């Protein structure tokens, strides 16, 4: 953990300090340990330097409530640093002072070191003026940050290009915006204070800190942004986590550290936002307010960096600690889930029944229903470890390969809409054979991204037929393999994340040397690395050194295949983006929700519901050589996966922390295959006889059912392409459409077997339930449904055939929620 500064080390004799932040130890002077003052150590550099302090109540290592307003503050040496009633400490002269906060019987202290108190700290355009313009909204989208500016004055959106903004402010409009002789007469100050008319209204007052920063910068001669300006190295938020209750307010303080060693309280210039407004909201000034139970991440964005504070607000239940202690733990997943549940006072549901488990496991892992005899065998097996054995067997089935080949084909966009049929097959076959061979995920990604040669011979090479230019490859690679979108940064720095336009074009330049030419056969293309080719950064108009996000750069003159360089970086065990993204996708497949939701929206401001769990799963996945099957087995064997979907009296509101299995509608292809499986009448896909829906290589196969139930068109890698919500169109289709009705009416399959076997009502109900719902009907169900069948027969008259009533029964089961949902 990085140390704050020399001052911090030097002061160790005065108070016992913890690390720079994080778990505080006994840093209260009187040792009572129930009050803390943040930040733990403060260095104020330069004239007028200030820092807001936050006083927190504390239980153990957890902050439990803000006490700043009710504390009294004192400085051990007001000649060095003063502190006011609000807790703002200000530099007076060089030296060291101890600031003590007292709330009732308890107190806490922090050390303050003052440096260069007589020298004004030089304000820079980049680090001070631009943040003022950002905070005041001047360079926001609706104002001068708009693509076309406002009233002839255009700034870059949220200040992503300080050099250009500097020129605009100092040179454009006949330099009227700045008056170096009389700074107060600068338009840059007259407009936002509404001293002259301003379409955007009053943005700040003449006595405000905003005004002060701009006036001081103008008075200093409007120094231009320079290469040697200190750059921000780290952003911190205090407190970084707190456990609060609804109605509580928690002010947050944000401190920025710069490369010249100084740190500043930048809270006033930060853009705050909450990821979960139902749990906590945050004001523009950084005061979080707890609204409900759960967890929220409050993000603070400053100079294109982001830091988050976690607000935990436990549910108002009284859960016996023993409930967590006695909950079964099958592997590391369960301990981490239970820790999170206990932090939030959420009770875990009991274990699923064997019938629930077998159906769920088959559907989630292989997209099929267990056959009735498999259900019977599993239910009658009384030996220990039968669930683990079932999982092992399931993972070796060909349907497991079908399912995961289909899933990765969604992700990798296999479709005859964008590839000739033979190339589409080649691409699909590469994916399917990779899954069948248990090819580790890193190897799959490496083969795909470095693919060369004939697309018919090397299916992976079709990736570069689908994604033809550096922009497309960059954005697709980020979404597919890292789980986030960097599209915003194509045109400007990402407004709420750390990715800059420079990051974007450095990454894009990794893909500027890929060429495609015609191959010998129809539909065949040859992908090969070109020797030259660059993509220019659109503003700088030069190519930048190729560099993966946050990775090392490759010299622009290097002659290696840039894709190779990228692939090595991507799949390196040290690159957490890569493993984390696929772990999250696989987790969602089984658990109904990503640890980060959505699976292609992994961002600092959208943190995981259980960060420790995501990290542990990611480490485990990497340690097991990126084997997807190992990950699947780990998840499926956890108690967490095997919990019932029935909520308890207190955990129904939780759809995020996995206190119970999240029931959800089945995917389109799985429903269709299941209907075919239960009715015993296969679907006939044009051009693909004998294949189940999950065996289709192509998303462009004509099927009204699949389209209506939300099959993704495979145009983009976005997870949201797949629609899993019920719709009226779907209801109409199952009521009146041909898919189910014709399978039921077919003179073969299950209905015919029931007719031929002269099955009575109870037998029919029994068989249909076992086939469709993987369970035996209850006595009550047997009774009411047999009676309903009798009534139906009676309505039809004395000689009415059995077929209609059997069809109707099967229809009712196949359109019911228990069948259409995995639970």
């Amino acid at each position, binding site marked *: 953990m990085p140390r704050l500064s020399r001052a911090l080390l030097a002061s160790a004799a005065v108070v016992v300090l913890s690390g720079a932040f994080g778990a505080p130890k006994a840093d209260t002077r009187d040792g009572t340990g129930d009050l803390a003052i943040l930040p733990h150590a403060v260095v104020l550099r330069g004239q007028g330097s200030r820092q807001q302090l936050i006083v927190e109540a504390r239980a153990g290592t957890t902050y439990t409530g803000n006490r700043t307003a009710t504390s009294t503050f004192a400085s051990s040496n007001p000649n060095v640093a003063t502190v006011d009633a609000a807790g703002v400490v200000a530099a007076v002269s060089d030296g060291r002072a101890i600031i003590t906060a007292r709330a009732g019987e308890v107190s806490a202290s922090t050390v303050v070191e003052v440096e260069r108190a007589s020298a004004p700290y030089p304000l820079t355009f980049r680090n001070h003026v631009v943040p003022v313009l950002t905070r005041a909204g001047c360079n926001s989208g609706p104002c001068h940050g708009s693509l076309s500016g406002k009233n002839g004055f255009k700034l870059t959106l949220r200040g992503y290009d300080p050099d250009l903004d500097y020129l605009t402010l100092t040179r454009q409009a006949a330099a009227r915006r700045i008056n170096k002789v009389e700074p107060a007469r600068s338009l840059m100050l007259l407009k936002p204070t509404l001293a002259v008319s301003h379409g955007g209204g009053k943005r700040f007052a003449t006595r405000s800190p905003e005004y002060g920063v701009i006036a001081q910068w103008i008075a200093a001669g409007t120094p231009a942004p320079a290469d040697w300006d200190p750059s921000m190295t780290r952003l911190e938020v205090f407190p970084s986590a707190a456990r609060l209750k609804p109605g509580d307010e928690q002010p947050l303080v944000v401190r920025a550290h710069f490369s010249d060693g100084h740190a500043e309280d930048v809270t006033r210039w930060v853009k705050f936002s909450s990821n979960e407004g139902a749990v906590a909201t945050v004001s523009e000034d950084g005061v979080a307010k707890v*609204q409900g139970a759960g967890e929220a991440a409050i993000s603070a964005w400053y100079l294109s960096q982001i830091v988050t504070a976690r607000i935990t607000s436990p549910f108002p239940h009284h859960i016996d600690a023993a409930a967590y202690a006695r909950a079964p733990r099958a592997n590391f997943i369960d301990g981490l889930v239970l820790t999170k549940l206990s932090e939030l006072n959420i009770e875990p549901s009991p274990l699923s029944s064997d019938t629930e488990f077998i159906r769920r496991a088959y559907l989630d892992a292989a997209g099929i229903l267990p056959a009735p005899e498999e259900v019977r065998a599993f239910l009658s097996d009384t030996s220990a470890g039968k669930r683990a054995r079932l999982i092992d067997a399931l993972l070796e089935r060909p349907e497991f390969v079908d399912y995961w080949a289909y899933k990765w084909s969604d992700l990798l966009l296999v479709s005859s809409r964008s590839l000739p049929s033979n190339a589409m097959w080649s691409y699909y076959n590469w994916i399917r054979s990779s899954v069948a061979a248990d090819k580790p995920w890193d190897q799959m990604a490496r083969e795909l991204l470095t693919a060369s040669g004939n697309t018919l011979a090397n299916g992976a090479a079709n990736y570069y037929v689908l994604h033809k230019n550096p922009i497309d490859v960059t954005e697709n690679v980020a979404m597919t393999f890292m789980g986030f979108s960097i599209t915003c940064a194509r045109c400007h720095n990402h407004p709420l994340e750390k990715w800059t336009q420079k990051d974007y074009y450095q990454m894009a330049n990794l893909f500027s040397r890929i060429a495609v030419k015609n191959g010998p056969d129809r539909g065949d293309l040859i992908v090969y690395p070109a020797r030259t080719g660059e993509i220019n950064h659109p503003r700088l108009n030069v190519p930048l050194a190729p560099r993966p996000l946050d990775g090392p750069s490759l010299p622009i003159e290097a002659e290696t295949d840039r894709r190779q360089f990228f692939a090595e970086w991507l799949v390196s065990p040290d690159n957490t983006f890569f493993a984390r993204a696929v772990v999250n996708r696989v987790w969602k497949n089984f658990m109904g929700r990503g640890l980060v939701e959505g699976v292609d929206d992994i961002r600092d401001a959208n943190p995981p519901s259980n960060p420790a769990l995501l990290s542990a799963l990611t480490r485990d996945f990497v340690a097991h050589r990126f084997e997807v099957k190992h990950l699947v087995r780990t998840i499926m064997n956890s108690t967490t996966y095997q919990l019932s979907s029935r909520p308890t009296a207190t955990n129904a509101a939780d759809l995020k922390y996995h206190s119970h299995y999240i029931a959800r509608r089945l995917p389109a292809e799985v429903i269709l295959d299941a209907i075919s499986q239960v009715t015993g009448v296969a679907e006939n896909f044009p051009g693909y006889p004998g294949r189940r829906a999950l065996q289709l290589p192509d998303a462009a196969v004509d099927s009204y059912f699949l389209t209506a139930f939300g099959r993704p068109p495979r145009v983009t890698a976005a997870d949201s392409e797949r629609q899993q919500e019920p719709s*009226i*169109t779907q209801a109409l289709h199952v009521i009146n459409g041909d898919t189910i009705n014709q399978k039921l009416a077919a003179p073969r399959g299950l209905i015919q077997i029931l007719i031929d076997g002269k099955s009575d009502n109870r037998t029919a109900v029994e068989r249909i339930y076992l086939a469709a719902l993987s369970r035996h009907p209850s006595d009550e169900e047997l009774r009411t449904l047999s009676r309903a069948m009798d009534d139906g027969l009676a309505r039809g008259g004395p000689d009415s055939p059995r077929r209609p009533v059997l069809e109707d*029964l099967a229809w009712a*089961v196949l359109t*019911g*929620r228990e069948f259409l*949902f995995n639970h």
Partner: protein
Amino acid sequence: MFRFDAEKSVHFCDGMRRRDFLHAGSLGLLGLTLSDFLALKAAGQVDPARDVNCIMLMLVGGPSQLDTWDMKPDAPAEIRGPYKAIPTNVAGIQISEIFPRMAKHADKYALLRSVYHTGAGVHDVGHQYMQTGRFFQFGNEQPHFGCVLSKLKGPKGDAPPHVLLPRPIGNTGGNLPHGQNAGFLGKTFDPFVLNADPSDANFQVPDLVSPDYLPSMRVDGRSSMRHLVDNAVSHLESIPDARLLDSNFQSAYRLMSSESARSAFDLSKEDDKTKDRYGRNRFGMSCLLARRMIERGVRFVTVNMFETVFNEITWDIHGSAPFSPIECYRDLIGPMFDHAYSALLEDLHDRGLLQDTLVLAMGEFGRTPKVNPAGGRDHWTNCWTMLMGGGGIKGGQVIGASDEIGAYPKDRPISPPDIAATIYKALGIDIETPIVGASNRPVPVVDYGHHPIAELF
């Protein structure tokens, strides 16, 4: 609870067992949140006297203001483009020569010539702004105007309150939501999507009618049986999507069983002359279908003129493939719109429906004033023109004005929330009516600080 033992038949075709629905203990029947409506009516936020419906024509792609409804005949050639201005039946209002028919109806619509938005010049962003009045931030999807209306007023009879024709907007390049569903209001209030092309020779709503081999009595029996099956596993009721599944089934049965609702989708009841008048193409037939629906109780119909901007001739005239050339306005798109729009206004007027039907025609942005090297025009969010007519809107007038090259509003800039406020006012909804937002906090239907365009009323 479901009267399975009801002894008689239960006819399906004539108004099917309304009471059985009540017996079934239904949840919101496609937005039948009567309580919302009653509560709002009591609070004076929904005007019960105003029962105005809306047809919204989304001109996907972004029509060029300079080639359609904001002509600059005196500007240099590279600005004014290839088309001439023609007079309309309202003195002083000129539009493009590509719209000879709508020129005869200028008294029925107002031209808003200073519409702008401040977001990125991406189709998807414009769709969000123009269909919801807001830009989506922080994963917070805002509801479409029609979905808000569904939520606040519920269905009128058996037809769904909000229908989207013919298909949703698909890929337009930005990979962002288009603002075409209920967003944070929940899927219950999503529009009913036709998902078929009404200009197809054998057009019908997919699966609206039972197949011949399924007599209505059996459809009924199945529904009863399905309830028995579902009721036995009531614990699944706690899943929101399972409840939605049920309400979808109920809505589907209502649609199937109501003669009037089914007839709303039946274009075969329209004569050839009418069809010719609207234009026998996807957009023309969608407009005709929209009129039928409004007549039969649908409150809001959204018609997407196009589904995408790629590899299809649309308003998106960049001038180079896979987009469209500027000439397509004269050769294809202009006539298509001219026919359908003028027919719709005339038809609604002749049937006495125009006064109670707000007709909107709008794109997601305008186009660059200067013709680009490919002879087309690119995206331009700073100024464009949209049309509003019917529903109590005073036609025959121009609101706002652009500068001499159609680049920026010169006068009375109109933002998407201003448009939203105007639409809600026309629909009889107070613009401060609260709807419950993503974080369970009530938000007004229109952001504070925006007002309806008073001159239009």
